[in-house]
């Protein structure tokens, strides 16, 4: 393999941003992508293939699916919640539902602000939640660049809780459905502040890509017309057009190699069963939370037996995930016509997110964005939990479904779960993947802070749907951990004793190794992570361009 300036592991949401910025600045980049290139013609309207069987997600799961260690247990089991998404050029954004929203300024200063306002006891003693080393204001210009590049539609000023923005949304929000308006009216009736979801789905043609057709098969599927702003539609072709990006598909990274001085020298990977090595002057990991962590832990050497960039024992720490309440409502006598459109056609609100409400006496900090989406699907509705008075099968259930199926909608929250000492990622000592390598093992237990926060949001969701006119509202029996919205493992921070990468995303220990993605986030925040991880990746790439000699070493 010829030498590259930069090798990027993973050509998804984060890696593709870096590939774009670096190639535009004249750097030669090789991207190792475990998945294939996909085509719009493959994106069909089939809930069984897309949602039930997860055809896009299954290959990643087969190689990277973590196990789960229940607290106090000796051995791991299958994870009781979903964890990984997909391998492909474009990554999981290919099948993401488009939500592209900024974190709030508070999310970057959760620890200090919570203590300032509520006192030391506001945070659980064993929580490791930390302020980010960068502020919303430092990230703001990069949010704007990503929004412009991927085509985020939204209405500036519609969300009164949004941080200050210096650029407008490049597109308007998606078409507003009857269900979108019904839920918006319900929220306003409560004195809340609904806004149309900012989404990277074209409300109008953009950058040569057509508008969304509202097909109803957006999430868990790629776009059949190319209206979704996933990296395969923007950053990857732009970078390839420079002639400086070489994409290797079907390349599964196995190890980061280092030279005698302890600098990263390249990445070893499997091309089918053949092992290859890609040398580079800078290595960027962008393979999602679990795989970024696994690659560092698997790259142990004689002088670093616990993994690369892990002298401080921080790799795998500060892991968390969203806890997601879901509430259903029936609106008897009304056909909601929500069996179509895009999940990104949602009404959202941040009244119960971050520190936008007084937490005194509530027993938790933070909150989450609430969303009521379009894009219901038939198996999804028929498989939803039923109200306690309704049986799950038989004639009575059939009658209930027939009466309510076209009148049902739901709303969800994304609770900002704190990080804890005991919640972490490690290599599983016994379970191995298809290549014989250990998989990641998750330890994750909700704290009282998370249970209370989740239940509080769930109560608000009930209120919301009732205010929108629901004749009945209900929820399922469990608290749902959405570990595809996962955070930590390679935390970003100024102190090498409590983090893995610095404020620029570069390893504290290996100067020419960077990490991109939500594995670097010190907090989960209560909103979808994709836009933020793209903005952070852009910032890291710009830092790399501007400090090339210092990071890559002399001779460049």
């Amino acid at each position, binding site marked *: 393999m010829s030498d590259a300036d930069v090798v990027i592991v993973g050509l998804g949401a984060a890696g593709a941003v870096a590939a774009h910025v670096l190639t535009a600045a004249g750097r030669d980049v090789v991207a190792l992508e475990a998945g294939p290139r996909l085509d719009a013609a493959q994106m069909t*309207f*089939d*809930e*069984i*293939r897309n949602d*039930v*069987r997860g055809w896009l997600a299954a290959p990643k799961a087969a190689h990277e699916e973590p196990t789960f260690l229940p607290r106090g247990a000796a051995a791991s*089991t*299958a994870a009781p919640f979903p964890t990984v998404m997909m391998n492909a050029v474009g990554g999981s954004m290919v099948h993401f539902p488009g939500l592209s929203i900024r974190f709030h300024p508070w999310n970057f200063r959760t620890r200090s602000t919570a203590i300032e306002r509520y006192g030391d006891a506001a945070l659980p003693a064993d929580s490791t939640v930390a302020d980010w080393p960068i502020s919303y204001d430092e990230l703001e210009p990069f949010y704007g660049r990503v929004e412009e590049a991927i085509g985020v539609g939204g209405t500036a000023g519609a969300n009164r809780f949004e941080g200050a923005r210096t650029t407008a949304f490049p597109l308007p929000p998606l*078409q*507003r*459905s*009857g*269900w979108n308006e*019904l839920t918006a009216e319900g929220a306003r009736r409560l004195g809340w502040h609904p806004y149309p979801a900012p989404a990277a789905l074209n409300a109008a043609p953009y950058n040569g890509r057509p508008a969304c*057709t*509202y*097909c*109803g*098969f957006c999430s868990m599927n790629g776009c*059949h017309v190319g209206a979704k702003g996933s990296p395969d539609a923007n950053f990857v072709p732009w970078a390839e057009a420079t002639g400086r990006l070489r994409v290797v598909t079907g390349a599964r990274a196995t190890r980061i190699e280092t030279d005698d001085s302890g600098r990263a020298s390249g990445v070893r990977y499997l091309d089918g069963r053949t092992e290859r090595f890609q040398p580079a002057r800078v290595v960027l990991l962008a393979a999602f939370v679990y795989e970024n962590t696994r690659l560092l832990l698997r790259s142990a050497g004689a002088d670093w037996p616990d993994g690369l960039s892990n002298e401080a024992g921080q790799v795998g720490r500060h892991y968390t995930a969203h806890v997601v309440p879901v509430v259903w409502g029936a609106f008897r*006598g*009304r*056909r*909601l*016509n*929500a*069996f*179509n*459109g895009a999940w990104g056609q949602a009404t959202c609100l941040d009244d119960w997110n971050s520190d936008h409400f007084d937490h005194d006496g509530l027993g938790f900090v933070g909150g989450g964005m609430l969303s009521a989406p*379009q894009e219901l699907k*038939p*198996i999804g*509705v*028929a*498989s939803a939990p039923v109200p306690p008075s309704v049986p*799950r*099968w*038989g*004639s009575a*259930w*059939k*009658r209930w*479904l*027939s009466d309510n*199926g*076209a*009148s049902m909608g739901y709303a969800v929250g994304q609770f900002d779960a704190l990080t804890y000492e005991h919640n972490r990622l490690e290599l599983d000592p016994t379970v191995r993947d298809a290549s014989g390598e250990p998989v990641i093992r998750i330890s994750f237990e909700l704290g009282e802070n998370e249970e209370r926060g989740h239940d509080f949001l769930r109560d608000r969701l009930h209120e919301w749907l009732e205010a929108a006119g629901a004749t009945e509202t209900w929820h399922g029996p469990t608290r749902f951990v959405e570990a595809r919205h996962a955070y930590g493992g390679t935390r970003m921070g100024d102190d090498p004793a409590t983090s893995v990468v610095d404020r620029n995303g570069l390893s504290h220990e290996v100067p020419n190794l960077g990490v991109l993605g939500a594995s670097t986030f010190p907090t989960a925040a209560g909103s979808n992570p994709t836009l933020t991880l793209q903005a952070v990746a852009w910032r890291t790439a710009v830092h790399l361009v501007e400090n090339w000699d210092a990071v890559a070493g002399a001779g460049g």
Partner: protein
Amino acid sequence: MPSPLDPHQQLILEHAVARLVPADELGPGAREAGVAVYIARTLAEHDTRFVDTYVRGLTALDAYARTAHGSPFVDLAADAQDAALRALEQGEVDGVDEGAAPFFELLLRHTREGMFGDPHWGGNADGIGWSLLGYPGPRGVWSARDQALADIP
């Protein structure tokens, strides 16, 4: 694609799904929608790891029917079949896989898939499930008017 179940197991399956979503005054149910065909195909082509769960589960359900109700499952009256399925649901039938993928939950999940999924996979014949739900079927383009609320008369 031949079913990985033997003819008797396939028949029990057909009778079981017919009780989970019965044909009644609202219209046809899971048997008419071809749900047992969908499940057999799914076990043959995709969920192959669950074939043994089905074989054990259907056999156990039949044995339970003979012991508790005195007849093979397929010969029981509808209310006795319902009682046997409730026993299965509540974990009262011996010899059934429980644990991470309990047989009854798997059966219910597959039944919903076969009832409401795309007919391409062998179930939801004539869109029976979609009609029941009021789902108009997949289509590439939906206008704002299509997405407006409507009153149900």
